[in-house]
């Protein structure tokens, strides 16, 4: 067999690029955090922010605003963005399916369903339990989607994943709709659906933090295995990889990250779809770089989208979910058009 002169061997692993992204990304992130704190219905001077963080004196209103409202909001955005992005990266790596993302998996519908049940039957539940509930709901629905998609002969093709996701989401949404209609909580659910960190506070972050940290550490540890998985299951097994174990661990991490993020911010699915793609194009195929870069870029996207949501229709807030969908949907369409594989 003659090798075509023009066969390009794409070995795209570019640590230098990754480092640059990490550095610049973190920088932009910090800037974003500051801007996020500074801009809102009332602008706060940078000097004040500095003082509020490092030389906090209770009693001064602006300091309180910074500490108790804006800082948690900004941090929550960053954390949530990172969670979604990492979850998406892991999913795409493991399923070798560029259209995989937590939103498509029905995570959102599951969490919404759990939320509907909560709001209808236990309206006075504290946020702690709400998070757990929505997390359980997310797990349930994505487990269903994943499971059914994988059972079928031929495994998890892009179309099958999408269709299973749609079916499970519709089912759960049907239940949620009925509950919301019957118990007249449509408005509350609508707000959650819009997605946003508007009401984020320290207690939420405190609850989130252990899960998120655990998930992220798990993701970093798993990254090398995911790189191997992304070469194909047969190759991975041939290289001595324990596929089932990696899949299980990966799935758990995805659920922890995505489930937690959804319970705080609502369904902002496209972050998990769009970010890993962009990162892969820039950084290559080694998940040891992809995962941290996705985290940084994901945070970046959420923080700046949150800023955008406050700036665009000043002084009203545009739902963050819609903003990200505006970026995400065209991107998804572009991907679907480009997909040449016989699906």
């Amino acid at each position, binding site marked *: 067999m003659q090798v075509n002169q023009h066969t390009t061997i794409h070995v795209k692993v570019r640590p230098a690029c990754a480092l640059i992204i990490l550095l610049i990304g973190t920088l932009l992130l910090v800037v974003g955090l500051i801007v996020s704190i500074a801009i809102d219905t009332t602008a706060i001077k940078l000097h004040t922010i500095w003082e509020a963080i490092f030389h906090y004196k209770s009693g001064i209103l602006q300091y309180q605003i910074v500490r108790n409202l804006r800082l948690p909001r900004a941090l929550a955005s960053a954390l949530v963005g990172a969670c979604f992005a990492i979850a998406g990266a892991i999913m795409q790596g493991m399923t070798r399916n560029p259209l995989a993302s937590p939103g498509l998996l029905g995570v959102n519908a599951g969490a919404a369903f759990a939320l509907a049940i909560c709001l209808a039957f236990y309206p006075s539940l504290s946020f702690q339990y709400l998070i757990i509930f929505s997390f359980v709901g997310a797990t349930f629905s994505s487990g269903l989607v994943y499971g059914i*998609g994988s059972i079928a*002969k031929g495994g998890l093709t892009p*179309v099958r994943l999408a*269709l299973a996701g*749609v079916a499970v989401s*519709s089912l759960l949404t*049907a239940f949620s709709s009925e509950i*919301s209609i019957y118990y007249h909580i449509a408005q509350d659910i*609508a707000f959650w659906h819009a997605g946003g960190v508007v009401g984020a506070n320290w207690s939420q972050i405190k609850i989130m933090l252990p899960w998120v940290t655990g998930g992220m550490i798990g993701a970093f540890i798993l990254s090398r295995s995911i790189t191997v998985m992304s070469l194909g299951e047969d190759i991975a097994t041939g290289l001595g990889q324990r596929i089932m174990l990696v899949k299980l661990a990966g799935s758990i991490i995805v659920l922890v990250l995505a489930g937690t993020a959804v319970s705080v911010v609502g369904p902002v699915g496209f972050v998990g779809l769009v970010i890993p793609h962009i990162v892969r194009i820039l950084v290559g195929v080694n998940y040891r770089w992809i995962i941290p870069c996705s985290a940084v870029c994901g945070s970046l996207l959420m923080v700046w989208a949150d800023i955008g949501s406050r700036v665009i229709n000043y002084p009203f807030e545009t739902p963050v979910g819609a903003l990200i969908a505006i970026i995400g949907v065209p991107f998804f369409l572009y991907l*679907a058009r480009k997909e040449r594989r016989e699906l």
Partner: protein
Amino acid sequence: MNSLSHLEKKKKIRYMVTICIFLCLIFTTFLLSMDAGLIHLSPIDVLKVLVNHGTSQQELILFDFRLPRIVISLLVGSGLAVSGAILQGITRNSLADPGILGINVGAGLVVVLFISFFSSMQVVPVFALPFAALMGAVLTATLIYILTYKKGQGLSPMRMILIGIAVASGIEAALIVLTIHLDPRQLQFVTIWLAGSIWGTNWNFVLTLLPWILILMPLAFSKARVLNILNLYEDVSKGLGMAIEKERLILLGIAVGLAGSCVAVGGNMGFVGLIGPHLARKLVGPKHQFLLPASALSGSLLLIVADTLARLIVQPSEIPTGILVSIIGAPYFLYLLAKSKA
């Protein structure tokens, strides 16, 4: 030659029997549905009313409430099922239906826009809603078509499904933004509409829907042969001399017209377009000359049963029919998905 068409004869008989069974079931449910509700109208009562011997109250209930609603269920069910059968034929994927392709939510979007536009006014011109919904369906379908069409490659069935799902997600996101700006009353209405409920319950709506069904349905049936061939491998269809792009476009138009007009009157009814054709296919096989009529009947049956249940389960209020259809439909769909070959 006669021995060769032995199987064909068998298939034809099976088809006839299935059609008869469907008709009987529909008729039975029809009678039950008449009877269902706060006020009971037994079959004898129905008969009495029909020959002008019933009370005026019975007449009112029968003619102004139950009958139109049942007729609409039948029409909407058949329209959506045939639309689904066509889409499955075009995309060569037995898991396609107008809901998945986002045509339903597209209609929903325009409806919500319409309603929010009239928020200032107290009276929402309800009669205009069907047209808004139809417009939404057509616009969405056009968008999907434009996005799926690639020069030189035409309309790839798989791509159409993915793009349909993408467009549906986008529209849902837009819907979410819009619904926030509605007041609770409007929101309740929209939620119910989105869940799918036969809310058009008088003869005006029947008249709105009827022409669409009467024109598009026979048109769809006449395209049975084309659908058979489209279902084959693409190069084979081309090799047989079929103008693939043109036929796909025509069929897409028919499917959207049917789906749009049905959704306009029946709300966002998912899964009928999926389950109807599937059931029909299991009973009469994949030949579209049999499949299309059988789908129409199975869709009608499904919807009339769901609608009756919806009215019965939580009396005196009701569950939106669409929710019931989803609850029945989605698990079956997932089962089909799990069982399907790539």
